[in-house]
């Protein structure tokens, strides 16, 4: 892996050879160990690394780009020639944004740990062995992915900007299934200390055991408790619709809604940059420094995401990034939410979510890997999966209670949410 200084030298050297008046060059490096397992055995075990360079050059508002993963001198010369040739022959782009001047970047919590780099395929196999051994004790089958990765993103431009990010990550997940039900759990973090495989095993095994032999349940409107994984699953679509320009043009659910109260009072959504449990990268679009952003506060839509072009049109600051995204919660556990639910459905995970109506943000999808009926504050039985047709806007409007937020995956920290009148529309025999 190249050092920061070596990368700066490389990027400066590329920029020095560019004859176009404006140029931005980025360097990406990634290395990963990814081990897949299924039916209690390792099925694939992959290892690899790759470096690549992307160069964008511009003559006035005419721009063009070229990318290569060959970093020898001849390939870099070709890269520059390609990008310049494309740009010179391109039409004028009325929305072209020039490179940024040098920026000051905030101190962010550590995102790179040597202990991830030091992991070997044997280390990962040993952790998977623990999952498989646990599954076998219940006569279950385990599958999953354990991936350890690290890398570098760096960016430099003809105005003298240089931005650098070095990161590592562990993404471990497993699905443990029996003949009539399954459980899923995942652990994610930047360092080995952040992931707890034993906790993941306990969670997946507990769900898989409880999920066996689900009973029929009729579709309809229910109070639901989404565990954080399910909250994240539905939040993803929500986040994709936060473009300020799309809203201003009337094509998203947020059209004309900034300043309006769309969600329950309890809902506050932000981008945080300094949470050590989920640190943000130091820079976003074109090298913009990251900053904390409030998207929704106490249920009111505060802001939508402006890219550099739209921010200029609207005379506001551009928003460098949306992720990692955070949602507020309450000082409660998931068990507290269950105890406070008279009748409802506990949703562990959602699957295959798609738009039904893009403008209204009406979504459909299925429950998966653990779906339970709650009566009088207790889980009484697993139930068969259902299809939902519902909007996350309605889901967040009908909030009853929330748990403490927790990190799920690599880009969100969200609570479990209890919400009323969530619509399920059809059933399946699939478990």
């Amino acid at each position: 892996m190249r050092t920061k200084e070596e990368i700066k030298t490389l990027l400066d050297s590329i920029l020095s050879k560019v004859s176009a008046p404006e140029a931005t060059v980025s360097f990406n490096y990634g290395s990963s160990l990814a081990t897949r397992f299924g039916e209690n055995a390792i099925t694939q075990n992959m290892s690899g690394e790759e470096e690549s360079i992307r160069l964008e050059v511009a003559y006035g508002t005419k721009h063009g780009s070229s990318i290569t993963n060959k970093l020898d001198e001849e390939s870099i010369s070709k890269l520059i020639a390609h990008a310049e040739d494309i740009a010179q022959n391109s039409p004028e782009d009325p929305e072209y944004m020039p490179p940024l001047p040098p920026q000051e970047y905030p101190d962010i919590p550590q995102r790179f740990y040597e202990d991830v780099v030091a992991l070997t395929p044997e280390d990962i196999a040993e952790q998977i062995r623990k999952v498989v051994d646990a599954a076998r004790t219940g006569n279950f089958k385990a599958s999953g992915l354990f991936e350890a990765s690290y890398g570098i993103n760096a960016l430099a431009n003809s105005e003298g900007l240089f931005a650098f990010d070095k990161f590592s990550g562990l993404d471990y997940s497993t699905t443990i299934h029996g003949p009539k039900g399954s459980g899923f759990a995942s652990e994610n973090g930047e360092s080995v200390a952040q992931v707890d495989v034993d906790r993941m095993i306990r969670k997946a095994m507990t769900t898989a055991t409880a999920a066996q032999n689900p009973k029929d349940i009729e579709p309809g409107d229910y109070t639901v408790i989404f565990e954080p994984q399910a909250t994240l699953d539905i939040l993803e679509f929500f986040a994709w619709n936060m473009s300020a320009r799309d809203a201003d043009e009337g094509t998203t659910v947020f059209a004309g809604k900034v300043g309006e109260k769309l969600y329950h009072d309890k809902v506050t959504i932000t981008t945080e940059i300094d949470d050590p449990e989920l640190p943000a990268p130091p820079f976003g679009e074109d090298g913009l420094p990251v900053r904390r952003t409030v998207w929704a506060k106490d249920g009111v839509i505060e802001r939508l995401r402006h890219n550099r072009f739209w921010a200029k049109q609207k005379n506001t600051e551009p928003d460098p990034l949306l992720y990692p995204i955070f949602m507020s919660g309450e000082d409660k556990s998931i068990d507290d939410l269950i105890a406070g639910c008279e009748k409802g459905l506990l949703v562990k995970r959602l699957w295959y979510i798609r738009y039904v109506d893009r403008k209204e943000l009406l979504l459909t999808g299925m429950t998966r890997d653990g779906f339970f009926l709650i009566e009088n504050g207790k889980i009484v039985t697993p139930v068969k999966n259902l299809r939902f047709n519902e909007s996350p806007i309605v889901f967040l409007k009908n909030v009853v209670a929330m748990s403490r937020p927790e990190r799920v995956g690599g880009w969100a920290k969200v609570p479990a949410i209890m919400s009323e009148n969530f619509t399920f529309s059809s059933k399946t025999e699939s478990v």
Partner: protein
Amino acid sequence: MKEYTDLALDIARGAGASFADMRIVDERQNRVYVQRRSLKLIDETESFGYCVRVLLNGAWGFASNTKLTKEEVAKTAQLAVATAKASAGVPKDEPARMAPEDAYIDTCVGPCEEDPFAVPNSEKAELMLTACDTMLNVPNIVMSWGFLQFIRMHRIIANSDGSYLDLTNYFANPMLQAIAVVGNESQDRSYQGGAKQAGYEFIREVDLVGNARKWAEEAVIKCKAEDCPVGTMDLVLDPMHLSLTMHESVGHPTELDRILGWEANMAGRSFIKPEMVGELQYGSEIVNFTANNVLEGGLGSWFYDDDGVRMFSFPMVKNGKLVNLGCTRETAPVIGWEKSTACCRSDGFEHFPINRIPNLYMEPGEDDSVTPDDLIAGVDKGIYIEGMGSFSIDQMRNNFQFGGDMFWMIEGGKKTKPLKKVTYQAQTTQFWNSCDGIAGRPYWQTHGVMNCGKGEPMQVMRMTHGASFTRFRNISVGGAKL
């Protein structure tokens, strides 16, 4: 390249591998992406890399690299051996083995009449800017976007069976969409022809500029249309729409790795069990699905799959009955089959090849004289759907819900008015068994899918589907809360 592949294979053999291969992938890509009247992206990408796959003591190892020197190749092969040894720590009940296969020495180049990389980028940009501008000139269109993507994929595959394959394929992938706003309503309409294994001639054939105004006007029509009715009714589906339906409810459930549970953590499993092959009445007797990885222009027609198996055509569903599965050299022997159906592919040098959907299509009806209008004439109350829209299916591939891109009410055997926000919901075998009419071969069309996601880390694969216009009876429509 043979000196490098020989080196990697020798190291694998020396370590005791029962099978090994080295796959070198040299890929060139060109993209032009336009939003409204702005050229957002115009670029060319060169990517080169290789991987070594090793089957040692019934367990897999895999390593990839981008640096091609003897030293780096040796290092990569040794790393693949090391990861195979680590995999053996959590072994399969039955050690993995590869179905036997002949050794092939072959060089193949896919169809490409007009080299897309020789067409000036300025021409491509102009085409997309004109198409998007044509859409924006239609009243109520607030957004248009589109792209052109061209890929030249060159693979060299050498394996321990003695195969040495030099394979080149070209892919052309256009897209264009208009988004309309009328009052509080917003609807879109898109080009629906998909991608093709072809050169730039395919872009000229689909005529994005010539069709842009029609698609934009239809987006506006959708905004003003009535909402989806609710009830049980008949459907007539066009070939573009059916491509997605069959992809999700026939293509994925017939992948043997899913059936074996290997994809349970993410993409899911399948309701099909191996013993259902030859038994399961998947559809009505007029339903025939063919897997055909030698289909001319098919996105999955790669000559040989990444297991080194020569691709071929085979029936998947015959007279409604499930008769075969998509499998690989590794998955086939697990259920006692001795021959792979050549469905093992990877989306790049850095990814392990997995069981993928082949080119898969529904055969046209037996009677070529049957027209789409004939099918519509046989519907008292129903909906005619064009193109792809919303799609969702459960992880066992049973319960699905689909939308579409354009909808028309059918009343008394005639298309009467446009609709919007149409969804229908069914269970897979119930749906295909409700098929009672298929238009003839003159109406059969293909659709190339460039974005089939599966695997962990995610791999994005290409394949082509095809169908003629088809009718289904008594389907639940409008279950979504509008």
